[in-house]
């Protein structure tokens, strides 16, 4: 039986989906700016972040209204609480993209330290995790959500690799320190984005299965990215 409430839940999911597409796009635009050493992408990311923030507020308000007026139960309740959490994660992803853009603006002032290889790879992985976590949400696909969580290790490993590599540049040439630190930070921001995608994956599993896996999911070692 289709309920009026279902319409409202659909609106909620559509808003979240749109927010996710903005967040995801902001990662790729930010990295594109870094790769192509082009300032023109900066404004786009900043603009999208503003829109993402507005959507975060809108989604919060919609969720509060649905909680108060519909008193949802069971799967409806889990959908709304998951939406609240996912929206905060997406908002943070938007912030991280802005952080990357800020690093980029600094990096553009000086010559490239080294060719970018691992950072774009990491960005592709992180972006893929965000995309799949949202696909898992839309399709209520717990297996895909779990897969997203498992992929976080890959991003963490790449981040460690980037860190070690750049460290050698820093040791060789102290004048590269500023550039090196900025690159390390970009890696760090991407690593955080992957963490947010992982959190979304966990939220999706809770929404679909009613089971909490965060904080004690045996396959994961959360120490490595805290």
């Amino acid at each position, binding site marked *: *039986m289709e*309920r009026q*409430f279902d319409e409202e839940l659909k609106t909620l999911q559509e808003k979240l989906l749109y927010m996710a597409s903005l967040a995801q796009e902001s990662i790729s635009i930010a990295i594109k700016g870094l790769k192509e050493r082009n300032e023109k992408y900066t404004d786009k990311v900043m603009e999208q972040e503003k829109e993402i923030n507005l959507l975060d507020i809108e989604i919060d308000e919609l969720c509060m209204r649905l909680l108060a007026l519909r*008193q*949802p*139960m*069971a*799967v*409806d*309740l*889990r959908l709304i609480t998951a939406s609240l959490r996912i929206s905060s994660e997406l908002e943070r992803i938007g912030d991280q993209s802005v952080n990357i853009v800020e690093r980029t603006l600094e990096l553009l002032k000086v010559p490239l330290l080294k060719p970018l290889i691992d950072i774009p790879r990491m960005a592709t992985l992180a972006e893929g995790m965000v995309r799949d976590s949202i696909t898992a949400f839309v399709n209520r696909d717990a297996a895909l959500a779990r897969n997203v969580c498992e992929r976080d290790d890959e991003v963490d490993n790449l981040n460690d690799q980037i860190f070690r590599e750049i460290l050698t540049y820093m040791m060789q040439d102290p004048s590269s320190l500023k550039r090196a630190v900025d690159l390390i930070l970009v890696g760090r921001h991407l690593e955080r984005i992957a963490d947010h995608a992982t959190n979304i994956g966990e939220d999706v599993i809770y929404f679909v299965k*009613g089971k909490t896996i965060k904080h004690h999911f045996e396959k994961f070692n959360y120490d490595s990215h805290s």
Partner: protein
Amino acid sequence: MDPKTKIESRHLDFYYGHKQALKDINIIAPANKVTALIGPSGCGKSTFIRTLNRMNDVIPGARVDGEILLDGVSIYSPKIDVVELRTKVGMVFQKPNPFPKTIFDNIAYGLRIGGMKHRKKIAEVVEKSLRKAALWEEVKDRMRENAFALSGGQQQRLCIARSLAVDPEVMLFDEPCSAIDPIATAKIEDLIQKMKQNYTVVIVTHNMQQAARVSDYTAFLMLGELIEYGDTPQIFTNPKNKLTEDYITGRFG
């Protein structure tokens, strides 16, 4: 430790003539907890709660199979005195049904029937019962007024006080708030939650939010069958059965 079982049904079947209203119901109501029964109209929840103090006995053609155990003793055994059973297992109904007597006498009646003669003692128990039902402050100066002068919500609390006066162990509520306003409902719900310190409570309700608010355990019935029984938070956040899910989210009804 699991809470102690106060009252339970085992393989309970119930028939109105040829029509089977309950099929193999196994429900436990733990001591000092609130157990809620929910389900669509005609699912058998009222029939079930009425088997717990044999209120169905008077219905012609009604028949019970299986057992209801109160503290492990079958209440349908021939040795059981039904009047005594109903003092132990009190009941509050959908519509408040005070006696056409004064407020005082509504409560004193059961005491006198039970053989209490001492006036002062009766007055004491009346006051204590009214206090337990959170009604004393509102009626202490109106004890000689007719009970029908009270509002619906007050009448319902008077009925609760009347049941409490005879010192029951189990309290059954069959849709206790369906005929009263939200403020009075909140008072009754609050009362039910406080009552579990001293009593075991079973409540039938159409209002799922009410079940969620007041109960510790919830049983979902449909077409005379028990579909799911579990901790109330689990039932309302993560029901195991699709039928339960569909019912509590209003996808059918």
